[in-house]
Structures are given as C-alpha cells and as structure tokens.
C-alpha cells in the first residue's frame, strides 16, 4: 500500500493536531541539538558509543486508538505503526528508499516484469509457534484481494495469481507489468498474517487477536487505554537494514492512548512516557529547553501545498495560478506558520524522492512579486478598488478551503497578506477535517491547502495528477492526455530509463501548468526522554520495527 493513500488519515491526524512534519535543510548537521536528523542517518555518535542494554518496558504515547489491527480493512496511520511491530513483510523499505530482505531473503523479477518469485527465509515462526511458509503469504495476499470492503486492495489489483510451489517459494503473476509492485509489497499494510490465527479469530481478528512473525507479540488491547506488546524472544530473522539482528532490546512496549495534546505532553515532560509522536510545532521550542527530554526533528517525505481546481475560473487560466505561485514567500510561511520546522517547498516531490527531476529547481517559480503582477496584467486583471484586481467587473477572489485546527490555519493567514500585495483577495473558509475531505471532492473547491505523505514519485504524480483519480485525490480536476499517457507508461514500462523520462515529463508539465503551489516540506517531530537510545526515524515508517531502541538504566 502506498502510504500516501493509506496515510491520508495520518496526514489528517498530523494536520489536525497542528503537528508539523518535514524535510531537511540544505546542510543538515547530524547530531547537533535542534538540527534535523536526515533520513537514514544512523544514531548519533554519543548514542553509538554506548553498548545497548537489555530490559525495561518502553512506554509510547499515541493520540488515538489504532482502530483495528486487521491490515486489510484499515487506513489508519497508527494501525500501521503497531502492525510494523507485530509483523514482518516480504521485503522492507530501507531508510534510503531501497528494498531490503524481510521474510523473503531474495527475489527475482521476470524480464517482462510480470512474474515475481520470492525465496523465503527458513526457520521463521509465528508468535503462536506455527512455522511460517509460502502458504501464509499466498493466503495473506488472497485475503487482501478478496476483501471487498478493503480500502487498500486496489494497490495490489494487478495480481493475477499467487502460487506456492514449495514452502520456501512464492510466485506472483501479474496481469500486466506493475513497476510499483515491490513498493506495494514493502508497504505498511502488506504484512504477513498467520492463516490459522486469522481463521480462528474470524471477525474478531485484529481486535482481540493478532499473530505475526515480528519482533513484538500482541498481548492485550484495552480499548481507548493501552496496547501491550511483549518481546518475541525467538526473533532471529530481522532485516539487515536494522542494526540489531536478534530479538528487540526492550522487554516490551506499552502504547498509551492520550488524545489531548496538552495531557500527552505533560505526561511526557513528567517522564511518564518515553516517546511521544508528533509534538505540536508550537511546543517544540519549549520542550527542547526542558531538561531530561529532547525533540528529534526528522526529515520525511511530505509536502504541504496550495492546490487549485484547474477548471474553476479564474484559476482555469494557468497565468493566474502561476501569478499566485510567484506571490508566495515561502520563507515567511515556514517561519510564521511552521515555527521553522520545515523547508520551503517549491516542488511536490522532495529533492530526495527517487526520480526527482534535477531541472525542477530551475523550472519552479520563486518569490517574485513584480513578475506575479505582470502576469496578472497579461491575464487581463487590472488593479481596482481597495487594491483588489478586477476584470469585467469581477474581483479577483480566491476561495481557500482549509482544515481547522491545523498548521494550514496559520499558513492561510500569511497567504492572505502575501496575495493581497499582488491584488488577489483570499477568502478563507475553515472546515473540520472530515467535512473538508467531503467538501474537497465535491468539485466546488477552488483553492485549498492540504498536506501529503508519500514514498515514491508514483504516490504523488500518478496518485494526484492522473485524470482518472478525480474527484479525489485529483482535486485539481487536472486532465491532460499527455500527462495521463506518461503516468500510465511509468507504471508498465519495464525500462527504467523510459520511466525516469516519464516522471520528469510529468514533473515539468505540472510545474509549467502551476497545478499547485507547494508551500512547505514539514519536519517530523518525536519527543524522547533521555533514557531512550537507538532512536532512528524512518522518512516514511516512523520507528518501523523498533528493534534498535533500548532504555538506558
């Protein structure tokens, strides 16, 4: 599953709680206080010199219950974070975005890109004691495909058949080549289930029972209170992407569910919880100065942007969209709305995303009020009463729909001022998050601010700009046959060079068309008390399997 889709709830949670997330500055300083940790950076040297100690229960605070641990019926970000602790996947996505062995020790892709053969590790057992075999893999993916109510099964729709010729081999045959198939197999929801456990629990699977091969066993879940996990002592098949090859260092993990931000931070400051996810941007400075705790700021693949409905006048005119882009001073937004926790975004993909187009930096608009004004002049919008531009008696007004509460409230306030300077009036309307997502697929949206998470270019370009993704997530109503053709080809052409060219074409075209005005790549924040060591945040998987984390006594 592509986290973008799956993580949209996550995105919401993040936006909702004024959390701020993002990507690194030009020259990150690993390990220095206050500096963001670049994606994939190893634990800081101070931590590395200490030998990991065993023992202790790690207490983690979540802001909501993860709904269910059945990976095939949820889209909740928090569920994926727990699933990653209990389960393994066939393959894993490394910190740098490459694929590393998981339950599969190696894999082979046929030249036509349609047959994927995986060789599975031997000696792997589920928590219940049952041996893991290819039958479980076949069962898991067939269950996912056949779950009609699954919100995520479209991610693996190209699968034609799954065979398990022997216990250590599993073979997927696709209806057509699908270049992001490995991405999907490494995805948050593609964890391997135990057929026996799933069938035994029936509709209670993921609620009262969960069984996997992962580093932590599911012990109990008291609804709206806590989830208790214990170390899997037999765990000897950890992915080489992690440092600790064996069982986890801590005895177990207790996830406490504390919905209110202030309460969660008070518990953290008091040292009652070891790790707290998504510290609100406004609290980061204060907590960074609090003795005994620190805030890890990390890069993630994330972009907050202003999107346009490209069919709604006057924003059906690319010049008007470009003018808005040019009128935005992103440094002001990062400083004023994100409390400095992020980098100005000029492109939808972060520069460290695979297939990022090197020419994007040149092509993307920079802050230039004069050029913005002249474009609006060209488009026929002339200065009118109160400094607002007019054309044919119409004022140049941009309705802007935002999610409240969230960072976009502050972002919108700054945008109002910046766009007023070039004669564009912004009419901001705040929505509760669920209502926003309902409204923003109505087709009536004009301008809107939202944040997205992704793992690869497909998760942004195909997902948001392909014409058949209307009315959502293609809320731009963007439909360009050429772009569609490139996007389709990027998924099925086995030639990486062609794919690269396709992705570059799409990036260039969407920048030229000014479909969006990217605003900020937000930094992620994680609160950690000093005793917690070995913390390394993944750009899209948070703490992943948490096998390297340990508690200093």
């Amino acid at each position, binding site marked *: 599953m592509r986290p*973008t*889709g*799956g993580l*949209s*709830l996550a995105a*919401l949670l993040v936006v909702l709680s004024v959390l701020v997330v993002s990507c690194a500055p030009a020259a990150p300083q690993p390990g220095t206080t206050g500096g963001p940790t670049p994606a994939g950076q190893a634990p800081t040297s101070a931590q590395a010199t200490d030998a990991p100690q065993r023992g202790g229960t790690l207490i983690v605070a979540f802001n*909501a*219950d993860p*709904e*269910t641990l*059945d990976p095939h*019926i949820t*889209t*909740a970000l928090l569920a994926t974070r727990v699933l990653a602790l209990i389960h393994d996947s066939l393959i894993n996505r490394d910190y740098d975005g490459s694929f590393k062995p998981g339950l599969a020790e190696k894999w082979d892709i046929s030249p036509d890109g349609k047959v994927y053969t995986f060789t599975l590790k031997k000696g792997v057992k589920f928590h219940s004691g049952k041996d893991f075999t290819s039958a479980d893999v076949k069962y898991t993916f067939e269950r996912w495909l056949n779950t*009609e*109510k*699954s*919100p*995520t099964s*479209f991610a693996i729709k190209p699968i034609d058949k799954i065979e398990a010729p022997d216990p250590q081999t599993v073979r997927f045959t696709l209806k057509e080549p699908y270049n992001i198939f490995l991405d999907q197999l490494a995805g948050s929801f593609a964890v391997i289930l135990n057929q026996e456990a799933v069938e035994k629990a029936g*509709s*209670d699977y*993921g*609620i009262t029972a969960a069984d996997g091969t992962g580093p932590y066993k599911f012990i109990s879940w*008291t*609804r*709206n*209170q806590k989830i208790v996990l214990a170390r899997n002592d037999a765990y000897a098949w950890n992915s080489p992407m992690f440092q600790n090859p064996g069982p986890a260092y801590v005895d177990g993990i207790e996830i*406490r*569910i*504390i*919905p*209110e931000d*202030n*309460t969660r931070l*008070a*518990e953290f*400051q*008091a040292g*009652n919880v070891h790790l707290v996810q998504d510290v609100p941007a406004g609290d980061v400075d204060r907590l960074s100065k609090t003795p005994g705790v620190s805030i890890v700021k990390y890069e993630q693949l994330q972009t907050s942007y202003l999107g346009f409905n490209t069919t709604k006048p006057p924003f059906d005119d690319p010049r008007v969209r470009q003018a808005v882009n040019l009128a935005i001073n992103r440094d002001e937004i990062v400083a004023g709305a994100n409390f400095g926790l992020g980098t100005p975004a000029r492109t939808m993909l972060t520069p460290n995303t695979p297939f990022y187009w090197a020419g994007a930096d040149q092509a993307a608009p920079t802050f230039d009020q004069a050029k913005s004004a002249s474009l609006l002049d060209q488009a026929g919008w002339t200065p009118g009463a109160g400094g607002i531009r007019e054309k044919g008696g119409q004022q140049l007004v941009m309705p802007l729909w935002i999610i409240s509460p969230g960072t976009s409230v502050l972002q919108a306030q700054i945008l109002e001022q910046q766009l007023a300077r070039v004669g564009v009036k912004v009419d901001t309307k705040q929505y*509760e998050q*669920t*209502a926003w*997502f*309902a*409204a923003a*697929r109505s087709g009536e949206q004009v301008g809107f601010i939202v944040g997205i998470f992704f793992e690869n270019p497909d998760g942004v370009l195909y*997902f948001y700009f392909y014409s058949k*993704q209307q*009315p*959502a*997530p293609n809320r731009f109503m963007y439909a360009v046959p050429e772009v569609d053709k490139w996007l389709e080809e990027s998924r099925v052409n086995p030639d990486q060079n062609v794919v690269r060219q396709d992705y570059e074409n799409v990036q260039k075209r969407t920048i030229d068309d000014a479909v969006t005005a990217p605003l900020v790549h937000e930094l992620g924040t994680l609160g950690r008390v000093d005793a917690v060591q070995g913390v390394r945040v993944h750009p899209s998987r948070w703490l992943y399997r948490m096998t390297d984390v340990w508690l200093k006594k």
Partner: protein
Amino acid sequence: MTQYIVRRLLLLPLVLFGVSVLVFLVLHLVPGNPAQVIAGPDAPPETVAAIERELGLDRPLPEQYALYLNRVLHGDLGRSLRSRRAVIDDVMDALPNTLQLALVAAVVTPILAIPLGVIAAARRGTPLDSGLMLVSMLGITLPVFALALGFMWVFGYQLRLFPISGYGGPIWTLNGLRSVTLPALTLAIGSVAALARLTRSAMLEVLNQDYVRTARAKGLRENGVVLRHGLINALLPVITVLGLQVAVLLSGAFVTETVFAWPGVGRLAVFAIQSRDFPLVQGTVLVIAVIFVLVNLAIDVLYAYVDPRIHYQ
C-alpha cells in the same frame, strides 16, 4: 407511586425512539460519509462505493433506519464501522469507568458544596462569605479544560501527588482512587460552585423565617439553629439541582474524560463522532439517554421521600 414509576418507565421506549431518530437524522446531515472516512480521503470512488454497499449506506434513509431499528430491537447495536468491534462491547467497557468517575464526583459535590454554602450563609456579609462566593463564581465560569490542565500541572506534574492522566484501575484500589481524583475534582468543581451558591441562597431564605427567630429566641445555640432548623428545610432545592447535576455527570463528561484520557462513555462518544462511526454514536447516545431518563426518575421519586407534601398521581 408504583403506578407513577411504571408509567414513567413505559415512556422510556418512546423517548429512546425519539432520540434514535434524531441522532440518525443529525448524523446523516453532518458532512462526511463514514465509508469515505473508512476508505481514507484519497480512496478511489469504487472503493468508497464498495464499502457503502457493504455497510448498507447506499440504501434509502428510511430503509437504513428500519434495518437499524430492527437490529436494535433484537438486542444488536451493531459493530463499530472503524474497529469492527461490537458496539455493545465498546459501550460496556466504557460505562463502568464513567460510572466510577461520576460516582466519585457525585459524592464529592455535596460534601464540599453544602458546608461551603452553609458557612457562607451563616457568615453572611463577612469577608469569608464574599471570598467563598468569589471563588465559586470562578468555579462556575472557568472552562473545564483550563481547570483540568491547571490541576494536572499543580497536582500531577509539580507535586506528583496524583497521576496526570489515564485510568489506574477500579476506584476501590489505591491506584484507581489516585487516578480518579483529578478528573473527579475537575468534574465536580462546576457542580460544587453552583450548588454552594444555591445552598447559600436557600439557607438565607430559610434563616429569615419566623420559626428560626423563635428558635433563637428560645435560646438555642447558633449552630443548632443553622443546622437543625435552617439546613434541613433548605435541602429541597439543593436536592433538585444535585439530581440534575448527577444526571449530567453520569451522561458522559466529554471534555473531562478527553483531557484526562479517561476511557469512559463521553470520550467514546467524542471519538465516534469524530470518526463518523454511526453505529457507535447511536449506541453511546442511546445508553446516555437511558441513564438520563432513569436518573431523573430516581430524583423525582426521591423528592416524595424528602418532602411528604409531594405526591405523584
């Protein structure tokens, strides 16, 4: 009396029917489709449609309601759309926690409020009276979340007397009692303040009566006058309001439970509404309605015992 109680109980299903229709309509008027929420905001329309079909959300509203009602009449509140857990399990897990919290708050309220009101009335016009009334005004006007954070900061973080948040166990255990203290106090403060003011004014009214003057004239000690002749006679309005407060306490302390991460019915309802979990909202609201009706009935019955002049037909 028995007849009255039976009549009131027979009305209960009617009340519940009204409540369920109202909640059903409101839920369907609020923007945000549960299938969309489940699928995630970026899911393709086919996925949303498949989930709608599976949940029966694609059918006409009256039909959806009829199906729901039929299930409820057969004792099935359905499953949560999000967790797929039986709604009855979710509600029954949360209910004891809310009851414990409300119980402690309901016990604390009169214990604090009545003495404060009596003292203020007995010392009418003194700085003590003014001080108490000022504090009670603060208690009424302070937003619950501000009070909660204040308590948390002082007693949980600085003094470390009580846990900052969470459920520590049943209230008859030490950990449980400690964990319930701050949320129960937060919950009780508003009621305490309101009730203290009411007690004071009721007391003042009674203390101006002729029989009180008579009691003083025959040489009773002031404490005896205030308590035996004053308080007993001032209690009726106090009980009325206390009853209403208890009903409110029991029907879910939405803010208090959320702020203190207290796993009760109020927090469950907030979560259900946020996630557009229709069956879960329906289930929690029905349970809250039942409690509200029953508590009100109990209060009405209690009147008749406190004041023999009251009769029900």
